[in-house]
Protein backbone atom coordinates (compact mmCIF):
# COMPACT_ATOMS: atom_id res chain seq x y z
CA UNK A 1 0.00 0.00 0.00
CA UNK A 2 1.30 3.45 -0.89
CA UNK A 3 0.72 6.79 0.72
CA UNK A 4 -1.04 9.32 -1.47
CA UNK A 5 0.93 12.52 -2.02
CA UNK A 6 -1.86 14.98 -1.27
CA UNK A 7 0.27 18.07 -1.94
CA UNK A 8 1.14 16.85 -5.41
CA UNK A 9 -2.52 16.13 -6.08
CA UNK A 10 -3.58 19.63 -4.94
CA UNK A 11 -0.89 21.20 -7.16
CA UNK A 12 -2.36 19.37 -10.17
CA UNK A 13 -5.99 19.96 -9.27
CA UNK A 14 -5.87 23.76 -8.99
CA UNK A 15 -4.69 24.28 -12.60
CA UNK A 16 -7.01 21.49 -13.77
CA UNK A 17 -9.96 23.40 -12.25
CA UNK A 18 -8.70 26.55 -13.96
CA UNK A 19 -8.46 24.80 -17.34
CA UNK A 20 -11.90 23.29 -16.84
CA UNK A 21 -13.58 26.71 -16.73
CA UNK A 22 -11.37 28.53 -19.25
CA UNK A 23 -11.35 26.02 -22.11
CA UNK A 24 -13.59 23.41 -23.70
CA UNK A 25 -12.82 19.75 -24.33
CA UNK A 26 -11.65 19.27 -27.93
CA UNK A 27 -14.65 17.15 -29.07
CA UNK A 28 -17.09 19.83 -27.80
CA UNK A 29 -15.16 22.68 -29.44
CA UNK A 30 -14.96 20.69 -32.70
CA UNK A 31 -18.71 20.02 -32.64
CA UNK A 32 -19.49 23.72 -32.13
CA UNK A 33 -17.10 24.69 -34.91
CA UNK A 34 -18.61 22.26 -37.37
CA UNK A 35 -22.13 23.44 -36.40
CA UNK A 36 -21.07 27.03 -37.09
CA UNK A 37 -19.94 26.12 -40.60
CA UNK A 38 -23.43 25.08 -41.67
CA UNK A 39 -25.47 27.57 -39.58
CA UNK A 40 -27.10 30.78 -40.77
CA UNK A 41 -29.12 33.72 -39.41
CA UNK A 42 -29.51 34.18 -35.65
CA UNK A 43 -28.15 30.66 -35.03
CA UNK A 44 -24.86 31.59 -36.71
CA UNK A 45 -24.60 34.78 -34.60
CA UNK A 46 -24.97 32.70 -31.41
CA UNK A 47 -22.46 30.00 -32.44
CA UNK A 48 -19.94 32.61 -33.51
CA UNK A 49 -20.22 34.32 -30.10
CA UNK A 50 -19.76 30.94 -28.34
CA UNK A 51 -16.57 30.22 -30.31
CA UNK A 52 -15.27 33.72 -29.74
CA UNK A 53 -15.94 33.47 -25.99
CA UNK A 54 -14.10 30.13 -25.95
CA UNK A 55 -11.10 31.65 -27.74
CA UNK A 56 -10.98 34.57 -25.29
CA UNK A 57 -11.29 32.20 -22.31
CA UNK A 58 -8.36 30.10 -23.52
CA UNK A 59 -6.22 33.04 -24.57
CA UNK A 60 -6.70 35.07 -21.40
CA UNK A 61 -7.22 32.18 -18.96
CA UNK A 62 -10.52 33.68 -17.78
CA UNK A 63 -13.77 31.73 -17.25
CA UNK A 64 -15.68 31.35 -20.53
CA UNK A 65 -18.96 31.53 -18.60
CA UNK A 66 -19.34 33.55 -15.41
CA UNK A 67 -21.36 30.73 -13.84
CA UNK A 68 -18.55 28.45 -12.73
CA UNK A 69 -20.97 26.02 -11.09
CA UNK A 70 -21.07 24.29 -7.73
CA UNK A 71 -17.95 22.15 -7.26
CA UNK A 72 -18.77 18.52 -8.01
CA UNK A 73 -16.29 15.65 -8.22
CA UNK A 74 -16.77 12.11 -9.51
CA UNK A 75 -14.15 9.68 -8.28
CA UNK A 76 -13.62 6.28 -9.93
CA UNK A 77 -11.57 4.16 -7.57
CA UNK A 78 -9.65 1.38 -9.25
CA UNK A 79 -9.97 -1.69 -7.04
CA UNK A 80 -6.27 -2.49 -7.50
CA UNK A 81 -5.00 1.00 -6.79
CA UNK A 82 -2.43 1.05 -3.97
CA UNK A 83 -4.16 4.21 -2.66
CA UNK A 84 -7.61 2.78 -1.92
CA UNK A 85 -6.97 3.18 1.80
CA UNK A 86 -6.19 6.89 1.30
CA UNK A 87 -9.53 7.78 -0.28
CA UNK A 88 -10.55 9.49 2.96
CA UNK A 89 -7.89 12.15 2.23
CA UNK A 90 -9.61 13.31 -0.96
CA UNK A 91 -12.31 15.37 0.70
CA UNK A 92 -9.87 17.79 2.29
CA UNK A 93 -7.69 17.86 -0.86
CA UNK A 94 -10.73 18.82 -2.97
CA UNK A 95 -11.85 21.45 -0.47
CA UNK A 96 -8.39 23.05 -0.44
CA UNK A 97 -8.09 22.93 -4.23
CA UNK A 98 -11.53 24.54 -4.64
CA UNK A 99 -10.70 27.27 -2.11
CA UNK A 100 -7.47 28.07 -3.91
CA UNK A 101 -9.04 27.97 -7.38
CA UNK A 102 -11.89 30.23 -6.19
CA UNK A 103 -9.36 32.91 -5.40
CA UNK A 104 -6.73 32.30 -8.06
CA UNK A 105 -8.82 31.70 -11.21
CA UNK A 106 -11.18 33.28 -9.87
CA UNK A 107 -14.41 31.28 -9.65
CA UNK A 108 -17.72 32.95 -8.82
CA UNK A 109 -18.64 32.38 -5.15
CA UNK A 110 -21.62 30.16 -5.84
CA UNK A 111 -22.49 28.35 -2.61
CA UNK A 112 -25.42 29.86 -0.75
CA UNK A 113 -27.09 28.56 2.42
CA UNK A 114 -30.68 27.67 1.40
CA UNK A 115 -32.23 29.32 4.47
CA UNK A 116 -29.90 32.08 5.63
CA UNK A 117 -28.44 33.08 2.20
CA UNK A 118 -25.02 32.97 3.87
CA UNK A 119 -22.28 32.62 1.24
CA UNK A 120 -18.87 31.46 2.57
CA UNK A 121 -17.32 33.07 -0.54
CA UNK A 122 -14.98 30.20 -1.41
CA UNK A 123 -17.34 27.70 -3.07
CA UNK A 124 -17.43 25.37 -0.10
CA UNK A 125 -20.22 24.54 2.30
CA UNK A 126 -22.32 21.71 3.67
CA UNK A 127 -21.87 18.77 1.24
CA UNK A 128 -19.82 21.03 -1.05
CA UNK A 129 -17.58 20.13 -2.81
CA UNK A 130 -19.98 17.30 -3.55
CA UNK A 131 -18.13 14.03 -4.13
CA UNK A 132 -19.53 10.94 -5.81
CA UNK A 133 -17.33 7.88 -5.23
CA UNK A 134 -17.61 4.56 -6.97
CA UNK A 135 -15.44 1.52 -7.46
CA UNK A 136 -14.11 0.61 -10.92
CA UNK A 137 -11.81 -1.98 -12.47
CA UNK A 138 -8.11 -1.23 -12.79
CA UNK A 139 -5.33 0.31 -10.75
CA UNK A 140 -5.88 4.03 -11.38
CA UNK A 141 -7.94 6.52 -9.42
CA UNK A 142 -9.69 8.88 -11.82
CA UNK A 143 -11.07 12.20 -10.59
CA UNK A 144 -13.57 14.09 -12.74
CA UNK A 145 -14.50 17.70 -12.03
CA UNK A 146 -17.79 18.96 -13.45
CA UNK A 147 -18.39 22.72 -13.04
CA UNK A 148 -21.97 22.83 -14.31
CA UNK A 149 -23.98 26.05 -14.58
CA UNK A 150 -27.28 26.68 -12.82
CA UNK A 151 -29.19 27.52 -16.01
CA UNK A 152 -28.84 24.03 -17.45
CA UNK A 153 -29.17 22.33 -14.06
CA UNK A 154 -32.51 24.08 -13.46
CA UNK A 155 -33.89 22.28 -16.50
CA UNK A 156 -33.28 18.81 -15.02
CA UNK A 157 -36.32 16.56 -14.80
CA UNK A 158 -37.15 13.26 -13.12
CA UNK A 159 -40.18 11.29 -14.27
CA UNK A 160 -41.35 8.12 -12.58
CA UNK A 161 -42.81 6.84 -15.84
CA UNK A 162 -45.56 4.23 -16.05
CA UNK A 163 -43.56 1.13 -17.08
CA UNK A 164 -46.13 0.20 -19.73
CA UNK A 165 -45.07 3.19 -21.84
CA UNK A 166 -41.79 1.41 -22.52
CA UNK A 167 -38.95 2.78 -24.61
CA UNK A 168 -41.34 4.83 -26.75
CA UNK A 169 -42.38 6.60 -23.56
CA UNK A 170 -38.71 7.42 -22.84
CA UNK A 171 -38.33 8.93 -26.30
CA UNK A 172 -41.49 11.00 -25.85
CA UNK A 173 -40.34 12.30 -22.46
CA UNK A 174 -36.94 13.33 -23.80
CA UNK A 175 -38.29 15.08 -26.89
CA UNK A 176 -41.07 16.82 -24.93
CA UNK A 177 -38.45 18.03 -22.44
CA UNK A 178 -36.16 19.37 -25.16
CA UNK A 179 -39.17 21.19 -26.65
CA UNK A 180 -40.31 22.68 -23.33
CA UNK A 181 -36.82 23.80 -22.23
CA UNK A 182 -36.39 25.88 -25.39
CA UNK A 183 -33.34 28.16 -25.01
CA UNK A 184 -33.12 28.00 -21.21
CA UNK A 185 -30.37 25.34 -20.79
CA UNK A 186 -28.09 27.25 -23.26
CA UNK A 187 -28.33 24.98 -26.31
CA UNK A 188 -26.83 23.31 -28.24
CA UNK A 189 -26.79 21.03 -25.20
CA UNK A 190 -25.40 17.63 -24.34
CA UNK A 191 -28.38 15.73 -22.96
CA UNK A 192 -27.67 13.32 -20.14
CA UNK A 193 -30.30 10.63 -19.70
CA UNK A 194 -30.47 8.07 -16.90
CA UNK A 195 -32.94 5.21 -17.19
CA UNK A 196 -33.93 2.75 -14.47
CA UNK A 197 -32.53 2.11 -11.00
CA UNK A 198 -34.46 4.30 -8.59
CA UNK A 199 -35.20 8.02 -8.47
CA UNK A 200 -31.75 9.10 -7.27
CA UNK A 201 -29.97 6.47 -9.40
CA UNK A 202 -31.58 7.67 -12.64
CA UNK A 203 -30.58 11.26 -11.89
CA UNK A 204 -27.04 10.27 -10.94
CA UNK A 205 -26.64 8.20 -14.12
CA UNK A 206 -27.96 11.12 -16.17
CA UNK A 207 -25.36 13.43 -14.63
CA UNK A 208 -22.52 10.93 -14.98
CA UNK A 209 -23.35 10.20 -18.61
CA UNK A 210 -22.47 13.82 -19.42
CA UNK A 211 -18.85 13.00 -18.56
CA UNK A 212 -18.60 10.80 -21.67
CA UNK A 213 -16.97 12.85 -24.48
CA UNK A 214 -19.17 14.36 -27.20
CA UNK A 215 -19.38 11.96 -30.14
CA UNK A 216 -18.49 8.85 -28.12
CA UNK A 217 -21.27 6.26 -28.26
CA UNK A 218 -22.42 3.88 -25.52
CA UNK A 219 -20.65 0.51 -25.56
CA UNK A 220 -23.92 -1.41 -26.08
CA UNK A 221 -25.24 -1.15 -29.66
CA UNK A 222 -28.93 -0.83 -28.64
CA UNK A 223 -28.17 2.13 -26.36
CA UNK A 224 -25.82 3.67 -28.93
CA UNK A 225 -28.59 3.48 -31.51
CA UNK A 226 -31.05 5.13 -29.14
CA UNK A 227 -28.54 7.94 -28.51
CA UNK A 228 -28.22 8.54 -32.24
CA UNK A 229 -31.97 8.45 -32.85
CA UNK A 230 -32.67 10.95 -30.05
CA UNK A 231 -29.87 13.25 -31.25
CA UNK A 232 -31.39 13.35 -34.72
CA UNK A 233 -34.97 13.82 -33.47
CA UNK A 234 -34.06 16.47 -30.89
CA UNK A 235 -32.38 18.45 -33.67
CA UNK A 236 -35.50 18.11 -35.84
CA UNK A 237 -37.32 20.21 -33.19
CA UNK A 238 -35.30 23.28 -34.30
CA UNK A 239 -34.94 24.92 -30.89
CA UNK A 240 -31.57 26.13 -32.18
CA UNK A 241 -28.53 27.69 -30.47
CA UNK A 242 -29.76 29.72 -27.44
CA UNK A 243 -33.34 29.01 -28.55
CA UNK A 244 -33.31 31.33 -31.57
CA UNK A 245 -34.36 28.53 -33.95
CA UNK A 246 -32.38 26.63 -36.59
CA UNK A 247 -29.59 24.10 -36.04
CA UNK A 248 -28.35 22.51 -33.87
CA UNK A 249 -30.40 21.97 -30.69
CA UNK A 250 -28.19 19.24 -29.19
CA UNK A 251 -24.52 18.42 -29.71
CA UNK A 252 -25.09 14.90 -28.40
CA UNK A 253 -27.36 12.65 -26.34
CA UNK A 254 -25.84 10.37 -23.69
CA UNK A 255 -27.75 7.51 -22.11
CA UNK A 256 -26.85 5.34 -19.13
CA UNK A 257 -29.08 2.74 -17.53
CA UNK A 258 -29.55 0.49 -14.50
CA UNK A 259 -31.88 -2.44 -13.99
CA UNK A 260 -35.18 -1.24 -12.57
CA UNK A 261 -37.91 -2.35 -10.18
CA UNK A 262 -40.75 -4.03 -12.14
CA UNK A 263 -43.19 -1.35 -10.95
CA UNK A 264 -40.87 1.65 -11.57
CA UNK A 265 -39.39 3.18 -14.69
CA UNK A 266 -37.46 6.29 -13.61
CA UNK A 267 -36.25 8.54 -16.41
CA UNK A 268 -33.79 11.27 -15.43
CA UNK A 269 -32.94 14.05 -17.86
CA UNK A 270 -30.11 16.49 -17.15
CA UNK A 271 -29.04 18.88 -19.91
CA UNK A 272 -25.52 20.27 -20.04
CA UNK A 273 -25.03 23.67 -21.68
CA UNK A 274 -22.93 24.21 -24.83
CA UNK A 275 -20.15 25.32 -22.47
CA UNK A 276 -19.55 21.67 -21.63
CA UNK A 277 -16.74 22.19 -19.12
CA UNK A 278 -14.89 19.51 -17.20
CA UNK A 279 -11.49 18.31 -16.05
CA UNK A 280 -10.10 14.91 -15.18
CA UNK A 281 -6.92 13.79 -13.47
CA UNK A 282 -5.70 10.30 -12.81
CA UNK A 283 -3.51 8.91 -10.05
CA UNK A 284 -1.34 6.07 -11.35
CA UNK A 285 -0.16 3.17 -9.15
CA UNK A 286 3.31 4.76 -9.00
CA UNK A 287 1.74 7.90 -7.51
CA UNK A 288 2.11 10.18 -10.52
CA UNK A 289 -0.81 12.48 -11.21
CA UNK A 290 -1.72 13.10 -14.85
CA UNK A 291 -4.22 15.58 -16.23
CA UNK A 292 -6.19 13.45 -18.71
CA UNK A 293 -8.87 15.91 -19.79
Amino acid at each position, binding site marked *: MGTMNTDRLTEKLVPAIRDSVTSLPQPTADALRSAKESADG*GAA*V*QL*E*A*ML*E*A*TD*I*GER*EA*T*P*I*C*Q*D*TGVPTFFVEIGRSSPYVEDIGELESVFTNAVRRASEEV*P*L*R*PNTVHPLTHD*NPGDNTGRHVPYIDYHMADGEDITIHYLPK*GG*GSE*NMAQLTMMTPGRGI*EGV*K*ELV*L*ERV*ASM*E*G*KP*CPPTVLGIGIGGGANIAMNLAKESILRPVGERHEEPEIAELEEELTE*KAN*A*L*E*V*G*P*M*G*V*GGQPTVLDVKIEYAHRHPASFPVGIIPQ*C*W*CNRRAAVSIDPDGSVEVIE
Partner: protein
Amino acid sequence: MKELTTPLDPEEVAELEVGDPFTVSGKIFTARDAAHEKLLAEHEAGNEIPVDLGKYPCYHSGPVVNKKDGRWNIVSAGPTTSIRMEMFEPDFMDAFGTRIFIGKGGMAEDTLAALGKHGGVYAQFTGGAGSLAAASIKEVDDVFYLDELGIPEAVWLLDVEEYGPLLVTMDSHGNSLHDEVSENIEKNLEAVKSDL
Protein backbone atom coordinates in the same frame (compact mmCIF):
# COMPACT_ATOMS: atom_id res chain seq x y z
CA MET B 1 -24.98 45.92 -37.09
CA LYS B 2 -26.58 48.92 -35.32
CA GLU B 3 -24.37 50.65 -32.77
CA LEU B 4 -26.29 52.25 -29.91
CA THR B 5 -24.72 54.68 -27.47
CA THR B 6 -25.86 55.81 -24.03
CA PRO B 7 -27.66 57.74 -22.70
CA LEU B 8 -30.12 55.83 -24.90
CA ASP B 9 -32.14 57.67 -27.52
CA PRO B 10 -35.79 56.58 -26.91
CA GLU B 11 -36.69 56.86 -30.60
CA GLU B 12 -33.75 54.77 -31.70
CA VAL B 13 -34.70 52.04 -29.23
CA ALA B 14 -38.37 52.06 -30.26
CA GLU B 15 -37.34 51.52 -33.89
CA LEU B 16 -35.49 48.28 -33.15
CA GLU B 17 -37.23 45.16 -34.45
CA VAL B 18 -37.04 41.44 -33.74
CA GLY B 19 -34.03 39.95 -35.54
CA ASP B 20 -31.93 43.16 -35.43
CA PRO B 21 -28.40 42.59 -34.14
CA PHE B 22 -26.81 45.55 -32.32
CA THR B 23 -24.08 46.64 -29.92
CA VAL B 24 -24.05 49.15 -27.05
CA SER B 25 -21.28 51.60 -26.17
CA GLY B 26 -21.41 53.76 -23.05
CA LYS B 27 -22.86 52.40 -19.82
CA ILE B 28 -24.96 49.40 -18.82
CA PHE B 29 -26.02 48.19 -15.37
CA THR B 30 -26.50 44.66 -14.07
CA ALA B 31 -29.54 43.56 -12.08
CA ARG B 32 -30.66 40.08 -11.14
CA ASP B 33 -33.55 38.93 -8.92
CA ALA B 34 -32.40 40.49 -5.64
CA ALA B 35 -31.35 43.77 -7.29
CA HIS B 36 -34.77 44.15 -8.91
CA GLU B 37 -36.44 43.55 -5.57
CA LYS B 38 -34.11 45.98 -3.81
CA LEU B 39 -34.41 48.77 -6.40
CA LEU B 40 -38.20 48.52 -6.48
CA ALA B 41 -38.36 48.55 -2.67
CA GLU B 42 -36.13 51.67 -2.55
CA HIS B 43 -38.35 53.36 -5.13
CA GLU B 44 -41.49 52.38 -3.21
CA ALA B 45 -39.99 53.80 -0.01
CA GLY B 46 -39.24 57.08 -1.80
CA ASN B 47 -35.48 56.67 -1.39
CA GLU B 48 -33.08 58.07 -3.94
CA ILE B 49 -31.68 55.63 -6.52
CA PRO B 50 -27.97 56.39 -7.03
CA VAL B 51 -28.10 56.19 -10.86
CA ASP B 52 -30.68 57.13 -13.54
CA LEU B 53 -31.76 53.65 -14.64
CA GLY B 54 -33.77 55.06 -17.54
CA LYS B 55 -30.65 56.05 -19.46
CA TYR B 56 -28.93 52.69 -19.65
CA PRO B 57 -29.69 49.09 -20.63
CA CYS B 58 -30.37 46.65 -17.81
CA TYR B 59 -28.24 43.50 -18.07
CA HIS B 60 -29.45 40.33 -16.36
CA SER B 61 -26.05 39.12 -15.21
CA GLY B 62 -24.13 38.13 -12.11
CA PRO B 63 -20.45 38.68 -12.94
CA VAL B 64 -17.24 37.05 -11.75
CA VAL B 65 -15.10 39.88 -10.40
CA ASN B 66 -11.76 40.45 -8.75
CA LYS B 67 -9.78 43.44 -7.57
CA LYS B 68 -6.71 44.68 -9.41
CA ASP B 69 -4.68 47.44 -7.77
CA GLY B 70 -7.63 48.25 -5.53
CA ARG B 71 -10.08 48.60 -8.42
CA TRP B 72 -12.89 46.23 -9.34
CA ASN B 73 -12.33 44.22 -12.49
CA ILE B 74 -14.96 42.18 -14.37
CA VAL B 75 -13.53 38.76 -15.22
CA SER B 76 -16.55 37.12 -16.85
CA ALA B 77 -20.12 38.39 -17.24
CA GLY B 78 -22.52 36.38 -19.39
CA PRO B 79 -26.30 36.69 -19.12
CA THR B 80 -28.50 34.85 -16.64
CA THR B 81 -31.97 33.41 -17.34
CA SER B 82 -34.28 36.39 -17.80
CA ILE B 83 -37.65 34.77 -17.15
CA ARG B 84 -36.98 34.93 -13.40
CA MET B 85 -37.28 38.72 -13.69
CA GLU B 86 -40.67 38.55 -15.47
CA MET B 87 -42.44 39.33 -12.18
CA PHE B 88 -40.48 42.60 -11.82
CA GLU B 89 -39.98 44.12 -15.28
CA PRO B 90 -43.36 45.85 -15.89
CA ASP B 91 -43.08 47.62 -12.49
CA PHE B 92 -39.39 48.29 -13.14
CA MET B 93 -40.19 50.05 -16.43
CA ASP B 94 -42.96 52.08 -14.77
CA ALA B 95 -40.67 53.06 -11.90
CA PHE B 96 -37.43 53.84 -13.76
CA GLY B 97 -38.23 54.14 -17.49
CA THR B 98 -35.65 51.49 -18.41
CA ARG B 99 -35.98 50.66 -22.13
CA ILE B 100 -33.58 47.85 -22.93
CA PHE B 101 -33.34 44.57 -21.06
CA ILE B 102 -30.60 42.11 -21.95
CA GLY B 103 -30.38 38.49 -20.87
CA LYS B 104 -30.98 35.00 -22.13
CA GLY B 105 -33.96 32.75 -22.78
CA GLY B 106 -36.52 35.50 -23.41
CA MET B 107 -39.37 36.85 -21.31
CA ALA B 108 -43.15 36.53 -21.35
CA GLU B 109 -46.36 38.43 -22.10
CA ASP B 110 -46.29 40.92 -19.21
CA THR B 111 -42.85 42.18 -20.21
CA LEU B 112 -43.81 42.16 -23.91
CA ALA B 113 -46.82 44.37 -23.13
CA ALA B 114 -44.70 46.71 -21.00
CA LEU B 115 -42.10 46.96 -23.80
CA GLY B 116 -44.94 48.08 -26.09
CA LYS B 117 -46.08 50.66 -23.55
CA HIS B 118 -42.58 52.09 -23.00
CA GLY B 119 -41.13 51.69 -26.51
CA GLY B 120 -38.53 49.18 -25.29
CA VAL B 121 -36.86 45.97 -26.43
CA TYR B 122 -35.57 42.76 -24.93
CA ALA B 123 -32.32 41.53 -26.45
CA GLN B 124 -30.44 38.31 -26.04
CA PHE B 125 -26.72 38.11 -25.34
CA THR B 126 -25.34 34.65 -26.07
CA GLY B 127 -25.63 32.59 -22.89
CA GLY B 128 -22.35 31.36 -21.48
CA ALA B 129 -20.28 33.85 -23.46
CA GLY B 130 -19.11 35.60 -20.28
CA SER B 131 -15.54 36.12 -21.43
CA LEU B 132 -16.78 37.81 -24.62
CA ALA B 133 -18.93 40.23 -22.60
CA ALA B 134 -16.04 40.93 -20.23
CA ALA B 135 -13.82 41.82 -23.20
CA SER B 136 -16.16 44.72 -24.04
CA ILE B 137 -16.32 45.98 -20.44
CA LYS B 138 -13.67 48.65 -20.11
CA GLU B 139 -14.17 49.66 -16.50
CA VAL B 140 -16.39 49.35 -13.45
CA ASP B 141 -17.95 52.79 -13.09
CA ASP B 142 -19.60 52.03 -9.75
CA VAL B 143 -21.25 49.30 -7.72
CA PHE B 144 -24.34 49.63 -5.52
CA TYR B 145 -25.74 47.52 -2.66
CA LEU B 146 -22.62 45.31 -2.73
CA ASP B 147 -22.50 44.67 1.01
CA GLU B 148 -26.18 43.90 1.23
CA LEU B 149 -26.59 41.77 -1.91
CA GLY B 150 -23.18 40.22 -2.53
CA ILE B 151 -21.13 40.13 -5.75
CA PRO B 152 -23.42 38.38 -8.25
CA GLU B 153 -26.57 40.18 -7.07
CA ALA B 154 -25.21 43.72 -6.66
CA VAL B 155 -25.94 46.48 -9.20
CA TRP B 156 -22.77 46.98 -11.26
CA LEU B 157 -22.59 50.12 -13.42
CA LEU B 158 -20.19 49.31 -16.26
CA ASP B 159 -18.43 51.27 -19.00
CA VAL B 160 -18.70 49.25 -22.20
CA GLU B 161 -17.46 49.51 -25.76
CA GLU B 162 -19.28 47.66 -28.54
CA TYR B 163 -20.85 45.32 -26.04
CA GLY B 164 -22.57 42.56 -28.02
CA PRO B 165 -23.58 41.06 -30.37
CA LEU B 166 -27.08 41.55 -28.99
CA LEU B 167 -30.06 40.12 -30.85
CA VAL B 168 -33.48 41.78 -30.47
CA THR B 169 -35.89 38.94 -29.66
CA MET B 170 -38.82 41.05 -28.30
CA ASP B 171 -39.70 44.50 -29.61
CA SER B 172 -42.08 47.39 -28.88
CA HIS B 173 -44.36 46.37 -31.75
CA GLY B 174 -45.65 43.26 -29.97
CA ASN B 175 -43.32 40.80 -31.72
CA SER B 176 -41.46 38.02 -29.90
CA LEU B 177 -39.00 35.70 -31.59
CA HIS B 178 -39.51 33.38 -28.61
CA ASP B 179 -43.21 33.03 -29.47
CA GLU B 180 -42.40 32.31 -33.14
CA VAL B 181 -39.78 29.70 -32.23
CA SER B 182 -42.15 28.14 -29.66
CA GLU B 183 -44.87 27.67 -32.25
CA ASN B 184 -42.42 26.08 -34.66
CA ILE B 185 -41.06 23.75 -31.95
CA GLU B 186 -44.62 22.68 -31.05
CA LYS B 187 -45.36 21.85 -34.68
CA ASN B 188 -42.07 19.95 -35.07
CA LEU B 189 -42.69 18.02 -31.85
CA GLU B 190 -46.02 16.71 -33.12
CA ALA B 191 -44.39 15.61 -36.38
CA VAL B 192 -41.46 13.91 -34.63
CA LYS B 193 -43.70 12.14 -32.08
CA SER B 194 -46.02 10.77 -34.75
CA ASP B 195 -42.96 9.09 -36.27
CA LEU B 196 -41.64 7.30 -33.16
